[in-house]
């Protein structure tokens, strides 16, 4: 396993991207610190890491974004923690859809589903009962792909 050090960074570009993408009611990153490990991963939290000079640090706070690819990808953990008051790029699921989403299965959107009208393409926040539950991907078709990490998927969740 390759060990890269964590460094504390200026989080404003990432906070701004998040605000633009999800239009939260309140700034969810007030008093938060941002950290980066390698080129692709941005983390957010309140821990002071100046003391941790070693490279065996595995994680700091909550993994928020992957910035290595063409498009920045929010993580499910990041959306659960900071996506609660999103007003944009968010889809509300019903009970049946939520069960499928949390099991890692695709959710179908019919052609005449009104939720499509305001949904941008790309990575979106998923909500159930007004609570952010994870990240999904939508490209304008009928399929909303669940991006719940494999080890966190739960079949037939107790709702």
């Amino acid at each position, binding site marked *: *396993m390759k060990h890269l050090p*964590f460094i504390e960074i200026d989080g404003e570009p990432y906070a701004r991207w998040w605000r633009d993408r999800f239009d939260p009611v309140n700034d969810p990153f007030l008093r*938060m610190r941002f950290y980066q490990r390698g080129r692709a991963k941005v983390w*957010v*939290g*309140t*821990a*002071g*890491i100046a*003391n*941790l*000079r*070693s490279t*065996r*640090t*595995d*994680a*700091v*706070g*909550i*993994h928020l974004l992957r910035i290595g690819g063409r498009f920045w990808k929010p993580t499910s*953990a990041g959306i*659960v*923690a900071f996506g*609660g008051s999103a007003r944009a790029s968010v889809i509300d699921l019903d009970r049946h859809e*939520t069960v499928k989403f*949390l099991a890692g299965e695709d959710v179908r959107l019919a052609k005449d589903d009104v939720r499509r009208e305001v949904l941008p393409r790309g990575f979106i926040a998923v909500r*159930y*009962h*007004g*609570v952010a*539950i994870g990240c999904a991907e939508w490209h304008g078709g009928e399929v909303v792909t669940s991006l719940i990490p494999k*080890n*966190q998927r*739960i079949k*037939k*969740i*107790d*709702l």
Partner: protein
Amino acid sequence: MAFKIDNFRHYVDLIDDWDAFVDACKRPLPVVIWANPLRREVLGRLNHADGLPFSIEEDQTGGDFLVARLRARGYECEEVSWYPGAYKFLDFPKPGRTLEHLLGIYHVQEEVSLIPSVVLTPRPGELILDMCAAPGGKTAQISVAMASEGTVVANDVRIDRLRALRSNCERLGLLNVAMTGHDGTRYPLDDGPFDAILLDVPCSCEGNIRRGIGADYEPQGTFLTGRSGLQATLLGRAWKMLAPGGRLVYSTCTFAPEENEMVLDYSLRDDAHIQPFHISGLTASPGVTTWLGRELRPDCANVSRFWPHSNDTGGFTVALVRKDVAN
């Protein structure tokens, strides 16, 4: 592994009521959960949507409203009297498969294993090390008690356990935790000094007998065999990283004095003081000061032993040690 009471026969003099002990060891453990105050708002929204009580200002831990939610689904529970926001369930078959668990609204943790973090008394703004942290329940208690101010360094040497730690910390939304993967016995001294250290060492897990996981401990008869050596090395290392005046909690889920009082006796010097503590609502037995014919430090009497029959829990042994302020 089948329950082998003979493995515990040599503790007969340490146990006030042997029959009650044997009886307790044969009963299954209740499921205990604690409500995560960091996710109170999420809980409030879910309850609002479901027509359940939701005003979070009225409920500091979120526990009452969580219980209202789970009761509505048929899970009955009672409060853990000494720990605000914790509840025990006799019939809650899959507590890890609910939406509330996935969203970090509660954490499942055995009642006695809630004790060490409480004894550590974490304060906002401190730098605290949890040296053998995975799977992270105690780390989470510390982080929550600090109200996300200050830093918890949660360490575990095993990659697979580190992964479990990380997934629990993220699920519970802990903001002030940094996770590291050092071998605790060689933890870099530069990362300290720490205001407080939780050292919940790997042990032979005798206290988990009620979980259906049998103890792999066999009476050894000699000191520093089995895991005692590792435990003593970890304690020695932790002590070097503890700030003057700092506090260290040493705990195991095992009964063996070889892994508790004898380790403390072997590793600690004059600058260490094992201190008494009391948790209202929990019955503890004093630590041992002689074992295998050896006289141990007199302050080993301040170690607290939580036997399964005393509070109807698993077994745990906890010591609070304070370091002298430097001269």
